[in-house]
C-alpha cells in the first residue's frame, strides 16, 4: 500500500506534462507552428524533420500542489500531516496533467505561391485527472471526522490516452490579408481510459433516533471506467516480447480509429496588426477494439447486522447473517465488467492571438513565395484553451518575438494560467544553412527549484527547413 501511495505521489510530481505550446504558436519560421495553427503565416518553402527528433515535447502541470508542499524539509510537521493538509487544501477542481508528443515523421513542401502542404506522424500521450478530493479524503482520513458529510464520487474524473496521429494539412494564402489552413487527422488509438460523469455519494449519518449509532448510505452510485487497449495488456500469460509486439501492432493497426480536423486562420488587420485563431483536434475516436468497461452502481443503506436470537439446538447452525448481508450488498451495489464500445472526443484546443509587428526587414525576393511584410519585432497576446471534462482550461500569454537575423530568432513569453503567475518562457531557434534547431522552455524560474514548480514544459527539435 505504502509503495503504491509513494509511486502515485512521485508520479504526480515527476512525469506530468501539459500542452499549451505558447512558444511555438505563430512562429513563422518554424514548421511546428502549423501544428497549432494550420493557417499561420509561414516563410519557408519546405521542411523535413529528423525522424523522431523534429519535435520532442514534454510538459508537466499540477494546478494546486508541488513537490515542495509535500516533501519539504524546513518544517516540523510530519509528511503525513502535510499530505493531509494538502488534500484538505486542494479542491475537486484542481488537476494534474501529462502531455507528451513525439514527431515521428514531419515534412512539408510548397505546392505553389499560395499553397503549402504538410504531413506527418506523431505519437501523443495525454493524461488529465481532476483531484478526486472526496474519495482521497475518505481513504486518507476515513469517515470519523466527516459524519453527516457526503463523500461525492463525482469527484472522480480522469482521461488518458496514447495514440498515433497521421495528418495532412494545407496552408493556403487567400489574399494579401488572409491565410487559411486545415489539417485532417487520422487517429490510431493504442490505449485509452476515461472515467467522467461519475456520480453518487457515501454518507455516514448520525441517527440519534436509532436504530444504531449511525446509518451508512451509498446513494445513487454510478461510476464507470472505460478502457481500450488495456484488457489484453493485463493478460498475465503474455510474455514481454509478445506484449511489445502487440503494442507495436496496436500503434499502427489498433482497431481504435478516429478522425479529426484542425482549422486556422491569420488575418492582417493593417500594416502592423495581425489577428490569428485556430482550433486543434476537433476530433472523435471510436473505441471498439480490446474494450473493457468497469461499472459500479447502485444504492444501499445499512445500520448493521441484526441477530434474531433464534433457539438454536446445541451444535445447530447459526443464521448466516454475514452471507445474507453480503448477498444484499451484491444485489444492490453492482460491480460489473462489460465490453461495450464507446466514443471519446479528443481534447479540443483553441488558440487565438493579436500581434503587432514593427521594425520592417526586407526578405529575399522570390516569386514562388507570397510577398509578406516582415518585421524584426513582434509583440502580442495569445489565448490558449483546452477542453477538459468539466470545461475549458485557459492560459493567457504576452510575447515578444525578435528576429536577430534570418537565422536566429527568439521568443520571450509571459503566461498566466492555473499553474503560476510567474511563467516566463524562452524559445531559441537557430538555422545553420538549412538545418534548424530549436529549443523552447517555459516557466524558466521554475528551474531554479523544480520542487516548487507546478508546471514545466519543454519542446525541442531538429529539422531541415528550406527557403528558396
Amino acid at each position, binding site marked *: *500500500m*505504502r509503495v503504491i*501511495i*509513494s509511486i502515485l*505521489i*512521485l508520479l504526480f510530481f515527476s512525469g506530468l506534462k501539459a500542452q499549451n505550446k505558447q512558444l511555438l504558436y505563430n512562429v513563422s519560421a518554424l514548421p511546428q507552428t502549423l501544428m497549432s495553427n494550420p493557417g499561420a503565416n509561414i516563410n519557408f518553402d519546405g521542411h523535413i524533420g529528423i525522424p523522431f527528433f523534429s519535435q520532442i515535447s514534454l510538459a508537466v502541470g499540477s494546478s494546486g500542489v508541488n513537490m515542495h508542499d509535500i*516533501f*519539504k*524539509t524546513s518544517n516540523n510537521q*510530519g*509528511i*503525513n500531516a502535510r*499530505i493531509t493538509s494538502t488534500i484538505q487544501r486542494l479542491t475537486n477542481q484542481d488537476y494534474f496533467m501529462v502531455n507528451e508528443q513525439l514527431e515521428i515523421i514531419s515534412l512539408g513542401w510548397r505546392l505553389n505561391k499560395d499553397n503549402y502542404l504538410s504531413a506527418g506522424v506523431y505519437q501523443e500521450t495525454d493524461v488529465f485527472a481532476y483531484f478526486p478530493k472526496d474519495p482521497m479524503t*475518505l*481513504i*486518507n*482520513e*476515513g*469517515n*470519523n*471526522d466527516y459524519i453527516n458529510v457526503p463523500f461525492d464520487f463525482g469527484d472522480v474524473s480522469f482521461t488518458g490516452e496514447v495514440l498515433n496521429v497521421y495528418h495532412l494539412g494545407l496552408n493556403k494564402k487567400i489574399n494579401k490579408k488572409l491565410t487559411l489552413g486545415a489539417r485532417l487527422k487520422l487517429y490510431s488509438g493504442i490505449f485509452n481510459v476515461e472515467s467522467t460523469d461519475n456520480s453518487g455519494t457515501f454518507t*455516514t449519518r448520525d441517527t440519534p433516533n*436509532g*436504530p*444504531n*449509532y*449511525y*446509518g*451508512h448510505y451509498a446513494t445513487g452510485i454510478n461510476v464507470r471506467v472505460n478502457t481500450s487497449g488495456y484488457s489484453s495488456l493485463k493478460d498475465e500469460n503474455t510474455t514481454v516480447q509478445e506484449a511489445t509486439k502487440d503494442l507495436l501492432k496496436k500503434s499502427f493497426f489498433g482497431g481504435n480509429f478516429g478522425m479529426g480536423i484542425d482549422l486556422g486562420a491569420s488575418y492582417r488587420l493593417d500594416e502592423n496588426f495581425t489577428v490569428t485563431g485556430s482550433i486543434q483536434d476537433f476530433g472523435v475516436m471510436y473505441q471498439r477494439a480490446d474494450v473493457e468497461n468497469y461499472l459500479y452502481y447502485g444504492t444501499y443503506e445499512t445500520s*448493521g*447486522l*441484526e*441477530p*434474531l*436470537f*433464534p*433457539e438454536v439446538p446445541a451444535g445447530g447452525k*447459526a*443464521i*448466516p*447473517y*454475514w452471507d445474507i448481508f*453480503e448477498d444484499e450488498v451484491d444485489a444492490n451495489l453492482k460491480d460489473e465488467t462489460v465490453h461495450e464500445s464507446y466514443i471519446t472526443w479528443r481534447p479540443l484546443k483553441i488558440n487565438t492571438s493579436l500581434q503587432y509587428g514593427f521594425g520592417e526587414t526586407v526578405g529575399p525576393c522570390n516569386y514562388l513565395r507570397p510577398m509578406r511584410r516582415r518585421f524584426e519585432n513582434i509583440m502580442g497576446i495569445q489565448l490558449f484553451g483546452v477542453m477538459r471534462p468539466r470545461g475549458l482550461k485557459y492560459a493567457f500569454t504576452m510575447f515578444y518575438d525578435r528576429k*536577430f*537575423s534570418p*537565422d*536566429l530568432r527568439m521568443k520571450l513569453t509571459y503566461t498566466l494560467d492555473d499553474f503560476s503567475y510567474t511563467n516566463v518562457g*524562452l524559445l*531559441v531557434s*537557430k538555422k545553420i544553412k538549412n538545418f534548424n*534547431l530549436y*529549443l523552447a*522552455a517555459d516557466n*524558466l524560474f521554475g*528551474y*531554479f*527549484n*523544480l*520542487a516548487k514548480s507546478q508546471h514545466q514544459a*519543454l519542446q525541442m527539435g531538429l529539422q531541415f527547413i528550406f527557403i528558396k
Partner: protein
Amino acid sequence: MFLHAHFNKVLFLLLIFLGVTSCVKDVDLNQTKDISLQPKLQTDLLIFDVDENDFIDPETNRLRTVIKDTVRLEFLDDSYIQDDLDKVEFSFKYINTFPQSFDTSIYLLSENDNTQRRIDLKVQPGSQDSPKTTEIIDFVNTDEIDQIKRSIKMVVEITVLPNSEAFEGELQFQSKGLFYFVF
C-alpha cells in the same frame, strides 16, 4: 549582430540555465518511507430490538432467561484488517424499558470458538416512560489488537435477572466500531 555571432554561447547559456539551475531543493524524498495513510473508520456493527416474546422458547412456550446469537464478522479476516488495523474503539449501548436488569456479555471468538475478548455489561432496569440507557466503550489498544485479528465471530448473550415486576418491555442494542488503520 552580437547575438547571431554568439549564438552558440547563447544556446549554451540557455542549456546551462536549464541544466545547471534546474534542481530540486529543500526537499527530502527519503520521507516517502514515512508515508502512511491513517484513516479512522466508523462502522456500525450489530443492532437488535428484543421484547418479552424473544425470551419465550418457541417449543416449550416457557421463559428462557438466557438468549444468545452469533454473528460472523467475515471482514475481520480481510487483509486490510489483518495487516493494517492498529486500534479499535467499540461502543455498545443498551436502551432498556424492561423493569428488570440484564447481565450481558459480548464475546469475540476465533474460528475455533476460543474467546479472544469479552465485554460484560450490566444493563440497568428502565420503564416504558423512562428508558434506561447503559453504554460501554471498549478500547482495544495496539498491543491487544491481535485479539481482534484472531476473531471472526461476535456472540451476544443476554441474561434476564427476574424480579417481582411484570416481564414486559423492550431492550434495544446498538453497537459500532471505530477502526484505526495504518496503511
